[in-house]
């Protein structure tokens, strides 16, 4: 390599270092300018947060519900056999004995009407109301688990046909229906988030446009002394990223508070629901997506402004 080539390489390396340093300066500049107008910056973040909180809360709740249903499948499902109300205790015992001898059936467990009423009172805090009842309206229920999950449907049909049995239900069917609804809900919420993205971009873009209008003199001077559009836009991109990131962080915080409130309300009504939380992978998706949306909005707003305000 000739001396001049080496010098040129060195020069490019040094300039690259200075270019990287400008990124650091741009980040500090963006933070300083956002800090100079804390109320305006906070309001922009709050607008983003307010828009994102509802869909994120919905997603967290749906995710929690889906996690709660994870253990419910045909492999682990129970068959609940509701006996007719007029079946005597001896007939019930006889039915239980025959079921225990059935080679297709693994576990068998009887829930008497009294036990059913106690469980109902405990799980729904309805003790006072249930004590008012003159007669126990609940039937005896036999819960059973088949040895082979694939025989579940056939077993249900066979038991439902017996004269002592009122109805037989597989508990995972309801879970399956709920799972389908949750899946549809998640899709709709994600679609809603996608539709919100342009509105959020406009919020960030407007903040950036106002910032540029405050700095018109500086921007024109930079254009006159040879600054490229990328150089002028760089601090704005960092500002956009900060607004997007801050807004998304606030929305996650608000969503957390909303979910906690939901759980408290549920507990007050005796519903012990699972704490729904978004998985870390979702957080890792939301935060960069919020920052990227801010960058994109700042890039567009900055580009439009620079095009419309060339140095004269």
């Amino acid at each position, binding site marked *: 390599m000739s001396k001049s080539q080496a010098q040129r390489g060195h020069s490019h390396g*040094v*300039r690259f*270092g*200075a*270019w990287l*340093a*400008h990124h650091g300066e741009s980040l500090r500049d963006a933070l300083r300018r956002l800090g100079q107008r804390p109320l305006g910056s906070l309001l922009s973040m709050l607008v983003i947060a307010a828009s994102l909180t509802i869909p994120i809360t919905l997603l967290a709740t749906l995710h929690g519900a889906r996690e709660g249903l994870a253990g419910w499948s045909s492999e682990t499902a129970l068959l609940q056999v509701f006996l007719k109300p007029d079946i005597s205790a001896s007939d019930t015992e006889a039915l239980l004995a025959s079921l225990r001898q059935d080679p297709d059936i693994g576990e068998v467990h009887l829930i008497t009407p009294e036990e059913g009423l106690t469980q109902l009172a405990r799980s729904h805090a309805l003790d006072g109301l249930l004590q008012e009842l003159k007669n126990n309206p609940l039937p005896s229920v036999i819960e059973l688990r088949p040895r082979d999950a694939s025989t579940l449907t056939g077993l249900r049909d066979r038991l439902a046909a017996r004269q002592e049995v009122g109805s037989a239900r597989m508990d995972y069917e309801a879970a399956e229906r709920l799972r389908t609804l949750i899946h549809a809900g998640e899709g709709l919420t994600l679609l809603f988030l996608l539709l919100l993205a342009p509105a959020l971009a406009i919020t960030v873009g407007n903040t950036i446009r106002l910032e540029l209008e405050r700095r018109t*003199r*500086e921007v024109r*001077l*930079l*254009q*006159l*002394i*040879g*600054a*490229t559009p990328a*150089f002028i836009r760089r601090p704005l991109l960092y500002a956009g990223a900060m607004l997007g990131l801050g807004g998304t962080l606030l929305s996650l915080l608000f969503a957390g508070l909303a979910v906690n409130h939901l759980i408290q309300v549920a507990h007050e009504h005796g519903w012990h629901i699972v704490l729904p939380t978004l998985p870390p992978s979702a957080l890792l998706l939301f935060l960069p997506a919020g920052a990227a949306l801010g960058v994109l909005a700042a890039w567009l707003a900055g580009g439009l402004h620079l095009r419309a305000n060339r*140095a*004269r």
Partner: protein
Amino acid sequence: MIEFIQVGKTYPNGQTALENVSFRLPAGRMAFLTGLSGAGKSTLLKLIPQIERPSVGRVLINGADIGRLPGWRIPHLRRRIGLIFQNPNLLDELNVFDNVALPLRVQHYPREETARRVRAALDKVGLLDREKARPQELSGGEQQRVNIARALVAKPAIILADEPTGNLDPALAFDTMRLFTQFNAAGVTMLIATHATSLIRQFDIPRLVLHDGRLYMDSD
């Protein structure tokens, strides 16, 4: 070298600022551009860094037609040109050092090189001891010298000045012009627009005279 070939400029409102202007300013030379207010001096200067584009004709710098430059090359053209305005146009939130350093920052000069060049430029205009001052703490003459230091800090090949002494008293205006002749002696091509005829008569420098958008060589 700056060369204008039959250049005309008409603004969108129909006002003709320049008409059939042709001249050549060789590299390393200096000229005054004079004329009454509204004669087209500022427009002519703006055509060189592509702040405005000519309606007709060609503007060449070192033989290259700058009208053919793509938009992304214009910042690079402007880096070779130092601009000095009548209004110093300093940024109030930056101190003197940082104002002067701006052209180097946009070109990504390393920190040490920037500091060395800024101090050398401030030394040339006699403001080395004021590098920490804010523009609002400076007199009008000092602000204009900061403006000049900013124009020369990146060692441009060309300096264009638009009424650089308009806000200065006669003694300071004379000092500023003498400073320009020193830059020119160091090889910088200089074109200075001014209507201060009594001042420019004190310097033996060619004059281009604009009148109603047409250019005449001063025979004086």
